Structure formats: structure tokens, C-alpha cells
């Protein structure tokens, strides 16, 4: 009984951390597997600039003005678009401010680090959620395996 | 079986120990209980100690461990230092020294606990006599058949009282 309670408690504590509550149930799997979109079709600067960027609501509406417009989630999307505001996505990856990390997507993409290395199996993910737990150890071990710089000032400045 | 006899003078105690040893008991069969340490001349009731060796061993182990740890840890992160050496025995000498000493301290302490029998009871069933200030109790371990003989010896050497404990 006690064990069950502890188990439930840990599940209750961990699950909310893993699953960010997104305003719209955006299924990555449908877009990637069925529509065959690529990551950079939406996250357009993931291969060149510092931030990967999240597409604006108008980009979504390019397709969803017509496609599946009757589904409830898309109606929510349309409502947001109509209001002239952006979708209040919850950030799922990020660095603590105190960690003073300057991460750049560009160099990683240039050196052929697959998106899945850090972001996990997004093609089969339902919504935007952190599939891979990141800490400094993740970065450092990958950097060392690939002969990338393990100098602190590569990321911290 | 055990004999416990109480003494009030050190000379009587020495006499008793010597007589018991002559009668065939070894130093391991004898134990003295007192409220303060009693010093004997060499050859009466020697308790050979390995504590200094243990201390040296502990020092060597901890010192070597610390030095190699520091060596490997520093070489592992390949610090760029400009012109200075990454690892130098001189600079880490103080760590080696302190850890060596810490090793010696720990070894001494644990060896003290071990050798004194505080964590390793030699005879867990053996009775422990109550001792008052300045009284000394001699505990003798012997076979039942020879107990009478030893009681005689103890009486003869001037103990105050002797009891037998199973």
C-alpha cells in the first residue's frame, strides 16, 4: 500500500514535468508521418541561426484555413488567428538563467547533429513535449564523443 | 568457564599473572579490568599491537589514492593552463600530505576499535566484572577441570576474592 502510494506520488510529480500543457493539442506525428513535413519546414531557422523558432499562427493557417477546418483543435487555432494574437505555446526546452548557456542550433545542424539526438522521436510524439532529459552531462558526453570542443567558454559566456 | 578475582594491589596482580602463565595459561586467556590503565613491565602481560603498522598502511593507501585521483582527475579535463603544468606533484603535495595523514588517523581509529575489542568482541559470552575505583579484576578463562587449581593460585597470590562464572 505504502509502495503504491509512493509510486503514485512519484508518477504524479514526474508526469506534469514531462508533459507540458500546450494550448493546442498539436500532433507532431500527424504532420511528420502523414503530411511528410520536415522539421525545418516549420522551425525554419533550426539549421542556420541560433534559435530554431516556432512558427507563427499565420503559418499554421496557410494550410489549416482549408484543411481539417472542422476539427475542434483547428477551430481553437482559427479563433486565435482571428484574434490577431499568437498561440501561447509552453516552452519545453530551455536553460536555467543561472546556467548562462548560449546554445546555438546553427553549428549543431551544420555539423550534422540529427534533430532526434536532442529532441527524441518527435515524428511519433503527440504534442510538444520534452522527450529527452537534458543536462550538462548530455552535452559534454556528446561533445567529447564527437571531438567537439569541451571548453567551458564554448557554451557558457 | 571463567574465574573472576579482584585485586587491590598491582604486585599481587603481577604475581598472579606470572603464576597462571607458569601453570600453562596463555595471555589470551587473561584479561584485566580496571578504571585506569595499568602498566606492566615487558614480559608480564604483553599485548602486541599492529596499530602503528595499520596507521602506516592506512596512510599509504589514502595518500596514494588521493594522489592518483588528483592526477587522473586533472588530466581528464585537460585544462589549458597557458604555460603552467596541469599536474605537478609539488602543487598537489599538500593534498597528498593531508590525505596521507587522514588515512593514518582513520586507520588508527579503526584499528583501535578493532584491537580493543570494542567492535569485535573476542568472547561475547564472557562475563564483565563490575569495577570500582582503583580495584582491578582479573578474568581467567579455563577448562572446568582445572578451575580449582587456578583458584588456588589466585588465592595464593593475594587476591581479595574470587568467583567462578559459567
Amino acid at each position: 500500500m505504502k509502495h503504491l502510494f509512493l509510486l503514485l506520488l512519484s508518477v504524479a510529480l514526474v508526469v506534469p514535468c514531462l508533459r507540458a500543457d500546450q494550448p493546442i493539442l498539436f500532433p507532431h506525428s500527424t504532420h511528420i508521418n502523414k503530411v511528410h513535413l520536415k522539421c525545418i519546414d516549420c522551425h525554419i531557422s533550426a539549421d542556420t541561426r541560433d534559435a530554431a523558432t516556432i512558427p507563427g499562427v499565420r503559418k499554421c493557417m496557410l494550410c489549416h484555413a482549408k484543411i481539417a477546418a472542422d476539427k475542434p483543435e483547428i477551430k481553437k487555432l482559427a479563433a486565435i488567428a482571428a484574434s490577431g494574437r499568437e498561440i501561447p505555446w509552453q516552452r519545453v526546452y530551455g536553460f536555467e538563467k543561472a546556467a548562462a548557456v548560449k546554445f546555438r542550433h546553427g553549428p549543431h545542424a551544420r555539423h550534422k547533429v540529427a534533430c532526434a539526438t536532442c529532441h527524441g522521436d518527435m515524428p511519433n510524439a503527440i504534442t510538444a513535449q520534452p522527450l529527452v532529459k537534458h543536462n550538462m552531462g548530455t552535452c559534454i558526453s556528446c561533445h567529447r564523443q564527437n571531438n567537439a570542443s569541451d571548453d567551458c567558454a564554448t557554451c557558457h559566456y | 568457564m571463567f574465574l573472576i578475582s579482584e585485586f587491590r594491589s598491582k604486585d599481587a596482580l603481577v604475581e598472579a599473572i606470572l603464576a597462571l602463565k607458569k601453570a600453562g595459561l596463555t595471555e589470551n586467556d587473561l584479561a584485566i579490568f580496571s578504571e585506569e590503565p595499568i602498566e606492566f613491565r615487558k614480559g608480564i602481560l604483553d599485548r602486541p599491537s599492529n596499530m602503528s603498522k595499520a596507521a602506516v598502511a592506512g596512510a599509504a593507501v589514502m595518500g596514494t589514492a588521493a594522489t592518483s585521483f588528483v592526477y587522473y582527475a586533472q588530466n581528464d579535463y585537460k585544462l589549458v593552463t597557458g604555460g603552467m603544468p596541469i599536474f605537478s606533484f609539488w602543487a598537489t603535495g599538500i593534498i597528498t600530505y593531508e590525505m596521507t595523514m587522514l588515512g593514518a588517523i582513520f586507520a588508527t581509529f579503526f584499528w583501535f576499535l578493532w584491537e580493543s575489542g570494542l567492535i569485535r568482541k573476542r568472547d561475547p559470552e564472557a562475563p564483565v566484572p563490575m569495577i570500582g575505583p582503583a580495584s582491578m579484576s582479573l578474568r581467567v578463562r579455563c577448562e572446568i577441570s582445572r578451575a580449582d587449581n587456578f583458584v588456588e593460585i589466585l588465592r595464593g597470590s593475594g587476591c581479595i576474592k574470587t568467583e567462578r562464572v559459567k
Partner: protein
Amino acid sequence: MVIDLDRCTGCEACVVACHSENNIGMSTPEEAARGRVNHWIRIDRYYEGQFPDIKVKYRPVLCQHCDEAPCEPVCPVNATYHNPEGLNVQVYNRCVGTFYCANNCPYTVRSFNWFDPKWPEPMQLQHNPDVSIRPGGVMEKCTFCIQRIKRVEDQADAAGRPVADGEVQPACVQSCPAEAMIFGDLNDPDSKVSRLAGDGRATKLMEELGTKPKVVYLEKAR
């Protein structure tokens, strides 16, 4: 880096540029009076002669990025160290604030965040997103604008070419109206700084301490 003292007018443009580029916190006048100003670069003034017949010499002093930096071996947590490019780096998130580095710096160029940094109202809007804001309790110092170095290196890497001489310009160098400061790669014998460092006027600050500073001052011998 090469600083031509004969050109320096002491206008302190470099100090201002450094402050805004590197998100350096601002102190109040009261705090400043207690020696609590944060400057990564400061202009030292030296007076010669008696008023009114007086001559003033200026010397911008910033982290000298010593090859054998006295601050590095004393940091217990490796928060300050030499990076492979030869910069003397300060890792803010590793710093625990023992102050040992600052005590051991003969140039007194390290500054400490006595409190969490503060800016008067609209000033926080001009923060440089490329530079992290250091929390209180952390030592900091001139980085030679490492964010600019990284940016240029990244661009060069993307274009598949080496970094050109003079392509990296720290904020102080960029803002110097007298062009008294020049930044470049001292390892490259053809770079402008290397040529200037071989100039007859070249001196280094407190070189006698064996710190091997990487900032070269050009100064007419007097």
C-alpha cells in the same frame, strides 16, 4: 590587443561601450563611492608636474588575458581558466565567489557582483541577448567580447573560410574614436596586432611579474 597610449585621449567611450555591450550592472553613486563600481575596462590617469603646468597620461586597463595568469591556478572550482584560444575565461555559472582570483590579480581588473545587477528603468531594455546577465555573488571581468569572437567564428565556419584579421572587434575597439585600440590574433605573425606588438614603442604592464600579459601598450619612451 594593442593599445596605443599616445593616441588615447581618455574619452572613456570604451568604458561606455563595454558597459552596454556586456550587460554590466550599474551601481548607485553611494555604492560607487564605496568602491562598488563594475568596470571591465577603466581609464587610469597619471599626472606629471604641478598645476597649471600639468600633463595627464591615460591608460585604459582591462583584463590583460595573461598567458600565465595569477588568477587561474588559485580558483578552487576552475571557474577561471585558459581556453584553447588563449583567452582567460571566466565561467560565471561555475563561480562560487571566493575572491581569490581578484586578490591575486595585480591589475585589479576583476569586478564582483555585490548584489544582483540592477539597471535604472529603461536601461534593461538594451541588454545584449548574446551575453548572459551575471547573478549576484559572481566574479566577472573582460572577456575580449567573447560573444563577438564566437559570432564571427561561427559565420566564418558557415562560410568555410578562416577568420580574417580585424574581423573581430570588441566593443571597446569598435567605439574608440582615436583608433587607439586594435584587436587581433597574436599567434598570427602577419596580423596587424602582431606587427604593432613588434613596434619599438611596445611595452606590457607589469611584465616583470611574469604574467605574460596579452595586452600590448604602445608608448613613447620618456
